[in-house]
Each structure stands twice: as C-alpha cells, then as structure tokens.
C-alpha cells in the first residue's frame, strides 16, 4: 500500500506528462512548417502568378484572394457583430427572447463549417444568384465568424464599469450617447481583439468557401465582387492532395504563408490585449 503522499506525487506527474503531450505537438507543428517552408519562400513566391500547372511560379492570386475575402468578411461581420453585442450588453432584458438569442449564437458557433458552405451555396450562390464569388464567400465567412465577434465584443462592453454609464446619464446624455461616447471607446481594445481573432479564423477556413468562392486555378486576378477567387487554404488543399508531383517546398511554403497570416492575427490580438491591460484606467 503506497502512502497518500506518494500517490499524489505519481498523480501530479501523470497530469504534468499529459499536459506535455498536449502542448508539444503544437510547438512541433509550427516549427516543422517553419523549417520546411522557409526555403520555399521568396519575393517571387509571394508576388508572382503560378505557372506550369501551379508547379512553378508564385501564389500571389491565392494571397490576394484571401485578403479580398477577409476585407469582405469584415465589411459584413463587424457592424452586425458589434451591433448584436451592444444589443445584448446594453439593451436586452433578461427573458425568453434574450435566451433564444443566446441559444442561437451558441448554436451558430457549433454549426460545422461545411454546413455553412452548403448554406452559402443554397442562399447566396443559388437563391440570390451571386454565383460562386468573392461576395458570396465573404457573406458565408461573415456568418461563420459572427459568434466569435459577438461573444468577445459583448464581454468587452460588459467589462466597462457601470459608474461610467451612470455618470454619463446623470449629465443628461441619452442612452445611445452614453453608449457611443463612454462605453464603446472604453471597450474598443476588447472589441478589436475579437474582430482580429474572428478575421484570422476566416482567413484559415476552407470548407465554407469550397462551393461559394474558391477556384481551383485562375490565370487572372478578380476584378469584381462577382468573380471567383483563388484562396490560400483551398490552394494548399489542392497542391497537397490533388496535383501529383507537386514540389514539396511549394506546399510547405504555402502552408507557412497561411500559418503566418492566421498566427499574426493571434499576435496582434495578444499585443492589443496586453497594451490595454497595462493602460487600464479602472
């Protein structure tokens, strides 16, 4: 019979080991892609059109397409998401309706990304006749990231002290003036963090744009919101699994560029959060 102190030591060693098993692959994956991807990256790689059936040249149209999709997603998701967050934090009263809204948001967060793709296909591409396009893809991605933006923006708005609102209302400001002039400026860093995280997520998603925006290969850049685009995540899928004899350094190079875009969103969000924490007035 081992003493309870010994069994505690064994148990703590086991949970520590489990945490190492969880965390190590994350570091390995990022390092592995970095090491294998860096040799494939050059100015030509990020600025040129692909040639020779995508086996040579660069990936510029895929980067450009992903940037367009992120901008489009932001245009739709930011006003809608922040508006919904203001509603939930400032206007909603606890009751059946608010519960229904919260349940809907939680369910939106859990809908599989490929189902968003089907929805985008059914509503935007077919029913509204947008075709497979930047516009349809952006709208689909915007709905996908909505729960992320709403949740973090609401949290940021709720974190603004109640005193600020009372002081403003006591001076005769209306509800909206209070929200606009006192609450939103103070919640801005938190809202920004949520937006950046949401857009980073949108940049990395593949399944929602498969049938709503992404092209296998396009020899030219899109010129209107109704054009199809190439996009980095789908491009990585294509060159990793669909084209035999694809040079490995192009695959790793593409994975690295995609990872850099998505992880820099995490970096920016972390910096905003830290700078804000250091300057916090209350």
């Amino acid at each position, binding site marked *: 019979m081992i003493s309870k102190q010994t069994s505690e030591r064994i148990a703590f060693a086991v949970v520590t080991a489990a945490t190492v098993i969880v965390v190590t692959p994350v570091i390995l994956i990022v390092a592995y892609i970095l090491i294998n991807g860096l040799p494939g990256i050059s100015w030509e790689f990020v600025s040129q059109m692909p040639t020779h059936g995508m086996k040579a040249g660069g990936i510029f149209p895929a980067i450009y397409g992903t940037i367009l999709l992120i901008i489009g997603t932001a245009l739709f998701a930011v006003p809608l998401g922040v508006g919904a967050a203001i509603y939930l934090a*400032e206007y909603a009263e606890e009751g059946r309706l608010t519960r229904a*809204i919260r349940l*809907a948001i939680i369910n939106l967060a859990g809908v599989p990304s490929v189902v968003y793709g089907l929805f985008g296909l059914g509503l935007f591409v077919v029913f509204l006749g947008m075709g497979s396009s930047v516009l349809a893809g952006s709208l689909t991605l915007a709905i996908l990231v909505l729960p992320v933006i709403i949740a973090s923006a609401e949290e940021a708005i709720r974190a603004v002290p109640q005193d600020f609102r009372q002081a403003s209302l006591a001076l005769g400001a209306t509800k909206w003036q209070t929200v606009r002039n006192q609450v939103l400026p103070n919640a801005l860093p938190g809202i920004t963090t949520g937006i950046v995280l949401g857009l980073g997520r949108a940049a990395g998603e593949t399944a929602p744009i498969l049938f709503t925006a992404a092209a296998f290969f396009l020899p030219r850049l899109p010129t209107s919101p109704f054009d199809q685009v190439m996009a980095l995540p789908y491009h990585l899928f294509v060159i990793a699994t669909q084209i035999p004899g694809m040079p490995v350094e192009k695959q790793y190079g593409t994975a690295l560029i995609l990872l850099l875009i998505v992880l820099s969103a995490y970096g920016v969000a972390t910096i905003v959060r830290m700078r804000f924490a250091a300057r916090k007035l209350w």
Partner: protein
Amino acid sequence: MEATRLTRAVAHRQRLGDRLVEVFIYLCGFAAVVIVALILLFILREAAPLLGAYSPLDFVGGIRWYPLSGVFGILPLILGSLVVTLGAIAIALPLGLASAVYLAEVASPRVKDVLKPAIELLAGIPSVVLGFIGYLVVAEMVKNVFHLPTGLTGLTGSILLAYMALPTIVSIADDAIRAVPVEYRHASTALGATRWQTIVHVTMPAAKSGIVVAVMLGVGRAIGETMTVWMVTGNAPVIPTTILQPLRTLTATIAAEMGETPRGSEHYQALFAIGLVLFVITLAINSVSYLVVRQHEDKR
C-alpha cells in the same frame, strides 16, 4: 426665441438619429435567430425534393452509398463519423481532463501563462494546415507503427481530431474546475486529505456538469470537422469494421462530392440532406450543453 427653436430642432434631429441607430442595434440583436432559421430553411429547401422521393429510413439506414447509381444510404458515412469521433474522444478526454487538472490545480501561475496561450494556439491552426501535416507526417507514422498498406485511416483522423477538440475540452474543463468554490477545497484539506484526494473526491465531482459540457462541445467540434478528416481518412465509403482502415465521414462526403455534382440533381439533394443530418446533430449537442450550463447557473 429663435435660438431655443434651433436647439430644439437640433435635439429633435439627434433623437431621430439615436432612434435609427437603436433600431439597427435591435435588428442586429435578432440577426442570430434569423440566421439559424435561414440555415435550416435553405438546407431543407435544397434537400426536400429527395426527402420526398426517397424514404428517410433508406437514406439513414441504407448500407450503400452509390450516388452515381442513385443509391443514397448514408449508414457507412454515419458510422465513419462515429468511429473517427469516438476514437478522437478516447484520446482527447483523458489528455484534456488531465491537462485541465494540471492547469487549474498544479501549475504555477507563471507556467500557466505560457501553456494556456500554447493550447489556444492549437485552436488557431487552420484545419487545412493540420490536414496537410496529418497527410504527410501522421499518416506515415500510423502506417509504419501498425504495418498497414496505407496510413490514411480512421485512426489518423481520430488523432488529428483529438488535437482539434483538445483546446475546447481543456479550456472549458479548466474554467469548470476553477469555478468550484475554494471553501470546498479548504474543508477537504482541513479534514486531512491531500491535494490529489481533494481533486478526485471533491473538486472534480463538483465540476461535473462543466466537464460534461466540455466533452459534449468537444464531440460537436469533432463531428463537424471537415478538411482534416477529408485529407487523412482515405475516403472509402464502406461500413468500417476497424479503426485502422480507410473510411469516409459525413462532412468529407459533402466536401468531396459537391464540386462534381450538377446543381439540382438527386445527388446534390442527397448531399444537402447529409448537411441537414449534421446540422440537426450539432444543434442537439449545442442546445443540450447550453441547457446544462443554464441549469447549473440557475442553481448557483
């Protein structure tokens, strides 16, 4: 007089502007409900013709998925998703709970400040990048360890899905454990229990409902994952008999076949019907976990 009237006019216009903005905010508030309804509506709309002509029982219970011959049995795909998901949970549950216990009860704040972002980073890696690594590295490992003809198997998918579900499981379980009142722990240690005995007999039972939610949301995440499983599970739409064979999930079937099927065909409708099945499964999982959390909060 003139000045007062002017101020009043300005104030009136401001109030009108306020009203317009507030109307916009109210509309945004209801958007989420409208969107959930629209998703259901538009997936049903595309799937409906098939569900009218093809018996739902043959669809869900059929053992053959031969879409080009008009045979749409999705049982192999349901079982494929089930096998991969159960495998993922078998890996992620012990690892995730142990990590959550470590983070909440054992780690020093400084260690935790490093580890938590690292685990969150895992959630940030795009699924197609994980699929790419899985295809090149994890599949090779599975192939060599089990001496298989191909490494693209259910197990490969389970391993990768486990890591995709881990951030969800760890962070929610960690929150649940830390939400247990500190008095419970003090009472237990005062009775002479060690920290580990306290964790096993007091803290974990008290955090039970949060841990259940963590697992459910992890399952939801795993069932809905698309790109990674598509890339690493080998895509064979057959009834799986072992986790070490190539199989096909519900999500991968939609992603792989939608691009090649003519709009409005029976095959196209069948893929939307699969989407409907997925939507209903995840809706159920998420609604139940929301109710569990809600009930727990009400009790507090």
